[in-house]
């Protein structure tokens, strides 16, 4: 439907000198949208031209409005030769398409050239008049709002959370080879920028359509990524969570809604039994793509356990390696950590694993090579898979039940040796092969699957039962909710995924652990850009897998879900991960998975610990885990360790502070091509992932903590190595048992000096743990715990053997002995792997005094932020000159690289102490042989070191429900939500609810007080809204009609005045400030290239300038929208390539975030009135 886009070119400044003779420039501007182009007059001989053009009007479809950027080109007029381009500005007009976002774009934009960088600025005004059109068949989705923020935006309330939306579009990359091309660099870069801009516009539009279909009006947690697949094309894909948001305007708010969101689990399961392909798999070829995709492998991991679905692994890597002949190699056994065996797979195959305590994975396993996992299951099509489970079902189940208790060997082992089998159809089975029916590999596949299927089955059963019983308990209002819920559930799509990482109070009931899946694919040319089925299918598989893992963990949903890729040549690793969770229990609980364990009903109880409670049944644990009673409520079981990808829930009860925990790993791999390469990578992946988990766990223990939040595992592939980097924020959850120590053991105890060595290491570790506890203020009163503690003896006395080590059977016995002391982990220092671990453990320097760091939004234990924030991006590229590096050496280097980077950050930011680095987001890449690139984006926020205040707050935090109070400052929304939902609830459902819930009471009291607070806050908001409106009215009365929309605009755009400050932060909030308006999403892609690298200060100078330019452009766009901050900022992509011989370099950067207007809490009324005075002159800056 048509809309009218209007643009006006006002002026330019600081233009470059284009005419050497006069040292001046004759500039004019071309304004282009779609296929229409307008030009301004030439403003002769000036570096600060004043065009003051007329309004250029474009009449266009809103579909185009969504897809196309407005393209402004500044040129130098040349009488005799062709006009020289000075640079361009792309303006995404999407924010203007929603009534609630920005209304006008006006301001100075940097004029950007892909070769020269920023060359002056141009002042532009853009507006859109949109005609309302309700054509049902429209292809546009104007008005759907997009938020990068992974929580409900602060000034909104979620009425409904509809669920997962995804889309991807593919295209030919106009210039994938930047060196030696025919077009000029400028032309090709611009073509690429424009294409990507178009593609992301299209992507947003399509996602918007899906959202509209679901009945939503916004996408939250929008995550868009580019895959530069080189020859095979360009993929732009996005995922997000569709929601119906409502602007918080007035107090009341109907309660129910917000929690509704999710899908009932039962429904999903029923609906999609089919979907359950098992986790195991790998890849399979998508029907379309035959050969290419065949080699894939995926596995997934979840903590507490590692689930490697793809792999069958049974053993530790070592043994298996030894054992396996060539074929065995694939085994990956490692994957399956012994203690935490894979749920399904493991049990059957590996009896030993079942006992949590069993330290070693015995050699027996070796025989059964786990290998198959990755065998090229390529062939198996989904359909096949789905069938298989059934057959296996029985055994699987059996195993499951049995295994925990009995070590009996169920060597049912699937160990089919098919590993070696070539990928079926390996040949070039071009796409012709359709759902390739079974292949050789099939059998294995089926075996693998079984485990998974089993779990699903269970779930199904459970859920079925559950649903029957459900309604009863909760009364009236709840029923309504339930009904609504089912409704939403019906609408729910295939994947109960949520890209959100923090949730309204009460939304998140239980968290089971991380589920992840990876798959290795061979890229093939995308033949038909209009039908990106291949890529779709790939992701589909992964998602299915994730879903099945979640089910296996007794969860019906996955939260904190994200997807990523790593591409090297034609091999691509697709990764997906999230946290299995049970949502919205309050309304769902009966319908939930376990009928068996009634005790779970009490989840609603202590909000501080509820989410830690295991969602699976103790008797039917999907994997052997150590459960113990919750240390807070003592009513329910909790795992000993919890890994999640989400943010720390605001109401979580945490002891002490958190810290950043990273596991870093490099693995060499042989250089190879095509399938061989893919196989090789597939083989390495599980080991890598396993090692990363081990490291994480060890480091977590070393910090004296028991839970990880915001876990992000990145695996990057290069030509000759794989690099893995796992980052997370460790915290001590009060609900979970206190972590045990780490025990060092040596295998040659007779040697005295050796013993000393061992004991000195042990001492060092113990000291570190003590020191860390001190540092992070983790003070646990263990005695008390024990007293209160449940029947279960000592939660801490569990032995966990992380590294079994199995050089020979002799050692085995020894090992067993050593691990008789059941004090947590035993590290075998003789084991080379362990040495590595030890090294990484002990070399990690603690954060310097005054610094804290985390990769989540909130740092537990710090509440009194000042308003000083500093967002930064740091990039390092490391060259490994030494060709003969071992894994060990490589690891050391990589570790040092990361550590040094962190140290540099601490040093740079030392003036902000005391401060916390939040959202430390590391990205690793292997851009070339022997190069490792690490990019970090984070924000440093300083806080008041006010002990008393802190102490107070901390105390509060401990008392039930109080945590919310503090977080009010940081996350208004959850509070808001809570209050709103709660307050209505208590009056309405007073009878039933209170009656039914024993613990419901305490909270309800608090709720009301919150409600008060909230409503006052809302009052404030409303007031503010009034002022704004009034302001705008005033404006409209001004002679210039255009003034109407500028109500919130400050005086920024005067050329003479200094530039307005725009804050940037990767967090979703700004400390000490309130976000009053979201202006739209910022999603920008830039390419920069140079052919005079040395002259620009080498690679560092080049990249430094480019990043600064990107920041500048982001800020300018935000300011032009009328905003003064970007929240949830992230740098998605930073691809850097250089060719020093040719003195060339190129870099691509993709950034995104949400433009917002915030007001300081201190100047509540001060700020707005000021801004509300329209500046009539604004349209015509001098």
């Amino acid at each position, binding site marked *: 439907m048509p809309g009218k886009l209007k643009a006006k070119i006002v002026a330019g400044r600081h233009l470059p000198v284009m005419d050497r003779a006069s040292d001046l420039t004759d500039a004019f501007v071309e304004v282009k949208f779609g296929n229409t182009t307008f030009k301004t007059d030439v403003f002769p001989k000036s570096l600060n031209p004043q065009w003051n053009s007329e309004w250029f009007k474009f009449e266009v479809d809103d579909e185009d409005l969504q897809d196309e950027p407005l393209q402004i080109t500044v040129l130098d007029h040349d009488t005799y030769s062709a006009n020289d381009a000075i640079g361009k500005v792309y303006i995404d007009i999407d924010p203007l398409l929603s009534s609630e976002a920005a209304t006008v774009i006006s301001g*100075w934009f940097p004029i950007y050239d892909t070769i020269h960088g920023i060359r002056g*600025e141009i002042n532009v005004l853009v507006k859109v008049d949109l005609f309302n059109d309700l054509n049902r068949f429209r292809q546009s989705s104007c008005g759907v709002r997009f938020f990068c923020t992974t929580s409900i935006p602060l000034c909104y309330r979620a009425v409904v959370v509809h669920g997962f939306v995804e889309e991807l579009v593919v295209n030919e990359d106009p210039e994938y080879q930047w060196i030696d091309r025919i077009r000029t660099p400028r032309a090709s870069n611009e073509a690429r920028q424009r294409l990507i801009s178009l593609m992301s516009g299209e992507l947003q539009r399509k996602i918007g359509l899906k959202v509209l279909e679901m009945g939503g009006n916004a996408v939250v947690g929008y995550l868009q990524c580019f895959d530069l697949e080189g020859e095979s094309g360009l993929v732009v894909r996005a995922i997000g969570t569709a929601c119906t948001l409502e602007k918080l305007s007035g107090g009341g708010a109907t309660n129910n809604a917000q929690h509704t969101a999710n899908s009932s689990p039962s429904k999903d399961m029923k609906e999609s039994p089919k979907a359950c392909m098992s986790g195991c798999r790998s890849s399979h070829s998508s029907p379309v793509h035959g050969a290419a995709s065949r080699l894939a492998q995926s596995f997934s991991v979840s903590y507490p356990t590692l689930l490697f679905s793809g792999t069958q692994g049974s053993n530790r890597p070592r043994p298996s390696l030894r054992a396996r002949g060539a074929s065995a190699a694939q085994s990956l056994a490692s994957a399956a950590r012994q203690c935490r065996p894979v749920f399904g797979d493991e049990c059957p195959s590996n009896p030993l694993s079942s006992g949590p305590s069993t330290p070693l994975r015995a050699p027996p396993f070796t025989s059964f090579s786990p290998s198959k996992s990755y065998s090229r299951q390529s062939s198996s099509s989904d359909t096949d898979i789905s069938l298989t489970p059934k057959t296996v079902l029985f055994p699987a189940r059996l195993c499951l039940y049995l295994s925990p208790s009995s070590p009996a060997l169920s060597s049912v082992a699937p160990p089919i040796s098919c590993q070696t089998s070539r990928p079926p159809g390996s040949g070039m089975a071009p796409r012709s092969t359709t759902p390739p029916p079974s292949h050789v590999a099939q059998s294995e596949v089926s075996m693998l699957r079984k485990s998974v299927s089993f779990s699903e089955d269970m779930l199904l059963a459970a859920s079925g039962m559950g649903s029957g019983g459900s309604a009863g308990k909760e009364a009236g209002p709840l029923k309504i909710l339930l009904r609504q819920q089912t409704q939403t559930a019906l609408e729910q799509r295939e994947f109960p995924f949520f890209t959100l990482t923090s949730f309204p109070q009460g939304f998140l009931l239980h968290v089971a652990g991380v589920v992840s899946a990876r798959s290795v694919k061979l890229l093939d040319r995308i033949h038909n850009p209009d039908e990106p089925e291949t890529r779709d299918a790939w992701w589909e598989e992964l998602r299915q897998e994730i879903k099945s893992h979640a089910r296996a963990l007794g969860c019906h949903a996955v939260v904190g879900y994200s997807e990523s890729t790593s591409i090297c040549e034609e091999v691509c690793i697709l990764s997906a991960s999230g946290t299995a969770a049970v949502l919205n229990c309050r309304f769902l609980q009966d319908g939930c998975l376990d009928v068996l364990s009634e005790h779970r009903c009490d989840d609603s109880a202590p909000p501080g610990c509820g989410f830690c409670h295991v969602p699976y049944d103790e008797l039917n644990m999907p994997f052997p885990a150590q459960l113990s009673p919750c240390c807070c409520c003592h009513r329910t079981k909790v795992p000993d360790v919890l890994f999640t990808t989400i943010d720390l829930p605001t109401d979580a009860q945490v002891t002490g502070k958190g810290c950043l925990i990273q596991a870093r790993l490099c693995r060499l791999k042989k250089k190879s091509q095509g399938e061989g390469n893919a196989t090789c990578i597939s083989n390495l992946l599980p080991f890598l992932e396993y090692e990363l988990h081990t490291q994480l766990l060890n480091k977590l223990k070393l910090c004296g903590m028991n839970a990880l939040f915001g876990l992000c595992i990145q695996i990057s592939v290069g030509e000759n190595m794989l690099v893995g980097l796992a980052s997370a924020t460790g915290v001590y959850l009060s609900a979970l048992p206190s972590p045990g120590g780490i025990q060092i053991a040596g295998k040659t105890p007779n040697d005295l000096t050796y013993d000393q060595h061992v004991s000195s290491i042990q001492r060092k570790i113990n000291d570190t743990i003590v020191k860390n506890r001190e540092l992070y203020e983790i003070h646990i009163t263990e005695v008390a715990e024990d007293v209160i503690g449940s029947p279960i003896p000592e939660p801490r006395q569990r032995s966990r053997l992380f590294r079994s080590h199995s050089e020979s059977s002799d050692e085995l016995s020894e090992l067993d002995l050593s691990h008789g002391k059941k004090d947590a982990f035993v590290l075998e220092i003789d084991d080379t792997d362990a040495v590595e671990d030890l090294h990484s453990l002990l070399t990690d320097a603690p954060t310097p005094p005054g610094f804290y760091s985390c990769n989540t939004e909130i740092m537990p234990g710090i509440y009194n932020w000042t308003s000083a924030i500093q967002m930064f991006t740091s*990039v390092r590229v490391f060259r490994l000159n030494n060709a003969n590096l071992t894994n060990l050496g490589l690891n050391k280097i990589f570790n040092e690289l990361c550590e040094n980077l962190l140290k540099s950050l601490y040093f740079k930011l030392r003036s902000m102490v005391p401060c916390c680095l939040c959202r430390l987001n590391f990205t690793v890449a292997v851009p070339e042989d022997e190069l490792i690139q690490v990019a970090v984006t984070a924000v440093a926020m300083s806080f008041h070191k006010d002990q008393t205040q802190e102490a107070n707050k901390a105390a509060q935090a401990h008392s039930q429900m109080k945590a919310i109070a503090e977080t009010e400052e940081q996350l208004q929304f959850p509070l808001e939500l809570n209050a709103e939902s709660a307050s209505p609830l208590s009056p309405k459902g007073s009878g039933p609810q209170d009656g039914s819930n024993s613990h419901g009471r305490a909270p309800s009291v608090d709720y009301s007080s919150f409600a008060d607070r909230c409503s006052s806050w809302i009052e404030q908001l409303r007031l503010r809204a009034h002022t704004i409106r009034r302001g705008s009215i005033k404006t409209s009365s001004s002679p210039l009609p255009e003034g109407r929309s500028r109500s919130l605009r400050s005086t920024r755009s005067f050329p003479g005045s*200094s530039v307005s400050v725009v804050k940037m932060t990767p967090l979703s909030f700004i400390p000490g400030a309130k976000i009053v308006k979201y202006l739209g999403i910022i999603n920008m892609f830039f390419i920069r290239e140079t052919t005079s690298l040395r002259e620009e200060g080498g690679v*560092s100078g080049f990249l430094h300038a480019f990043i*600064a330019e990107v920041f500048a452009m982001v*800020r300018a766009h935000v300011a032009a929208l009328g905003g003064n901050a970007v929240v949830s900022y992230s740098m998605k992509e930073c691809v850097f390539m250089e060719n020093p011989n040719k003195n060339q370099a190129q870099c691509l950067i993709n950034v995104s975030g949400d433009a917002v207007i915030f007001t300081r809490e201190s100047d509540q009324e001060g700020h707005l009135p000021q801004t509300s005075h329209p500046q009539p002159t604004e349209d015509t800056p001098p």
Partner: protein
Amino acid sequence: MSVELDVFVGNTTIMDQEVYQLWLSGYTVGDAVKVRMDGGVLDGCDASAEVLRSDTMDQFRTFQMCERLLHNPAKLANQLLFQIPPDRQAMLIDRYYAFDDAFVREVLGKKLSKGTKKDLDDVSSKTGILLKSCRRQFDNFKRVFKVVEELKGPLVENIRQHLLLSDRLARDYAAIVFFANHRFETGKKKLQYLTFQDFAFCAGELISHWTVGAMDNQLEDMDVDLDKEFLQDLKELKVLITDKDLLDQHKSLVCTALRSKTKVFAEMEASFKNLSRGLINIAAKLTNTKDVRDLFIDLVEKFIEPCRSDRWVTIDVNLYLTHYINSAHILDTFKHQAVWNSLWDELFKMLTDIQHVTVCFLVKMGMVASGASAAAEGTRATAASSEEPVPVHPTQFTTSISFSFRDMLNVGCRAWPHSG
């Protein structure tokens, strides 16, 4: 293995003042790291030299990128590339345009040309200031000169507005521009004892009293050029030495006033004619560009050195000049009926101004060595004395030779214009 690329970019540009200073001083990254290490930056931080190096490199790069903007400080305020808080911007600019007195002393009064720039390595080795820093400072002078050259209106104000410099810096640059414009000779050995600040003071006084802009306050006039008419008028003063009668009268007036007030009265009486002649000659020759250049050296040679050889002290010089001026005034009134018309009145007034200026500036010169507080006092005292002959308090000046020498200089100067 090596770090190939290492950058850190903050949304708000982070700059360490200390590092900035090192960069401005022209240090290489390696040297800067050394200096910082020795300075103890790492104390209390758990960081290695590696970290320090990375930080230093990064900041040096930032400064380099900012440099382009600093060349046009007005741009810094509304550029979009770096987000720098306004107070930091001011700091950046001020520090960038700051210069070393030792350096400027070498270049002061020289033509800001390529030739001079080529000689900078000599300057560098002489002053110990790194060549890079010398170049920056020299380029700054040139840049400011270029900006201001064509502008109308008060010089200091122009510099302040166009380059966003602080008051003090703007005044210093005005002096530099002024000196460069007139190419005053400052490099002679006899002038070596004078610091840049001494000259800057002189320049300030000259600008406000001798230039076209100072004469009539119309904005279109320029501050940079000396008022030709005024210089022409100064020739009239020659009567004071050419007319025998006048000279004698003048001498006797001064001597009468001075008698018994100073220990060196005999010497004063003896050298009166010489000194008077010296001063008046300097004044009368100023229409000649070459002589303008030699203004300072002439002053020293013709007036200050004789005083010094007679062992006058500050107070003596002060007294002498005060009375020299007063007497001339009386002479003037005597003369009133004769040759002198209203022109003389004006001229005389102007001379007083000039004298005042010069005196102040010279006092300042003299005070450099004797300490700031004394300088302030002295300035006030001499200024006062030039208007009404209030005797200078004797304790205000130390009597050591060297000091007195400088004081003589200043007082001498003040006296000279009056000599009319």
